């Protein structure tokens, strides 16, 4: 297994979520769930990140921010939509300011459903993302 898959770094951005999924993402990093045992580290710097976790739907204000973070991440990269709002807009689908799920602006690789997504589901999503990351790396054929 390549180094990348052993220690994927992730960046988290709150699209327009209600905070519920965000605190569950944070709960994943803290003692009871502790994704760091899989080598996963939460970083604030897009240039260090391999996995992009987005919670909440896309609105006109944050569209540019999300695209900008994605474009700064180095290849290969995986996008993971956490929570039903990030998947398709969820309960806020009919709100005037919501464009829709994350897949309206970015290619999403992993969808994690739930309102709020449970830490177990988020960890499962991240592990799936690691698999996709590894495939993408092989396709790209570079050394990592």
């Amino acid at each position, binding site marked *: 297994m390549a180094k990348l898959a052993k220690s994927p770094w992730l960046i988290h951005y709150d699209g327009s*979520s209600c*905070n*519920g999924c965000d605190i569950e993402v944070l709960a994943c990093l803290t003692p009871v769930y502790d994704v760091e045992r899989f080598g996963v580290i939460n970083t604030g710097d897009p240039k260090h990140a391999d996995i992009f976790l987005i919670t909440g739907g896309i609105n006109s204000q944050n569209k540019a921010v999300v695209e900008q973070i994605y474009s700064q991440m180095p290849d290969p990269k995986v996008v993971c939509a956490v929570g039903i709002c990030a998947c398709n807009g969820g309960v806020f689908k009919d709100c005037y300011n919501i464009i829709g799920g994350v897949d309206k602006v970015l290619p999403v690789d992993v969808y994690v459903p739930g309102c709020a997504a449970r830490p177990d589901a988020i960890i499962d999503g991240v592990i799936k993302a690691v698999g996709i990351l590894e495939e993408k790396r092989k396709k790209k054929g570079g050394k990592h």
Partner: protein
Amino acid sequence: MGNRTIVPFGPQHPVLPEPIHLDLVLEDEKVIEAIPKIGYIHRGLESLAKKRDFNDYVYVVERTCGICSFMHGMGYVESVERIFDVEIPDRAKYLRTIWAEMSRIHSHLLWLGLLADAFGFEALFYQCWRMREQILDMFEESTGGRVIFSVNKIGGVLKDMPHEMLLKFVNNLNGMEKELRALTDVFLNDYTVQSRLRGVGILTKEQAVTLGAVGPMMRASGIELDTRKLGYAAYGDLSFDIITSKDCDSYARCEVRIGEIFQAFDIIRQAVSKIPEGELITPVKGNPPVGEAFMRVEQPRGEAIYYSRSDGSKFLERMRIRTPTFANLSPLLETLKNAELADVPLLILTIDPCISCTER
């Protein structure tokens, strides 16, 4: 006068999981002015009242914010109950109080953890969040959800807590309390922690009044006000003091919130010893009558106001929430003035910001 520079802070930044943008006008390392820009998580939740009927809308209001989701649901439901003019069963009132105080403990523990992270004490951050998981387990056992509970309904609550469960919870809380004393001792007495918190981010009593601070932010500036004293839910039957501090700095805000955690333990114990048997819900029939109602709720972050207006149809004509973080934004800008750049993340944290609530 040194060189002035503008440093953009956010929306994607490592302090909070939520996006907020501040333009910090700096002179060397000193902040001269902070200009906020919000709207990154605006969803337009209030307008959804026209598309979801008043019963379904409970679930939307709950998702205003995942941290104080229970209290958002409770505030909305009580405002509609006022329009209906319905008296809810006593047991439901007590259950709401217990869940609300559990939310307060989990929210304050979350904040203490983030505060520890902001001043770079990572072990303390993890300890706080470990303790918080015990509260979330109790929520999961009693409601089925960890952060979104959906137990409020107009007229009462949907789920009951059997007596054995309540006793078990009190037992758990007693166990937690001992451990928590040791943990909060670090916040209150540790030399390094004090050096980061004492005298940082002063908000005087006069400023707090003028700028309209709410919640622990206001009480840490020596103002004795707490919406719970209005006696909504079962708070009227329970005895508790308002926790204040006169120091007006970040340390005082930490102290007040720690005090409120232990107070919440006490309120839950009182509520469990007094909770009456009986129905969970008073059924309401038909659409809400024409009318309007205000409801004020003391959330962990401060006073939230819910306004509902009905025109007699099943959709509310208007639903409005005034959230505590919005009220605390102008005091925040005041504390940021003349602060050092390195203290900015800490100062933003001391108001316990919840941007999801603010922008809705």
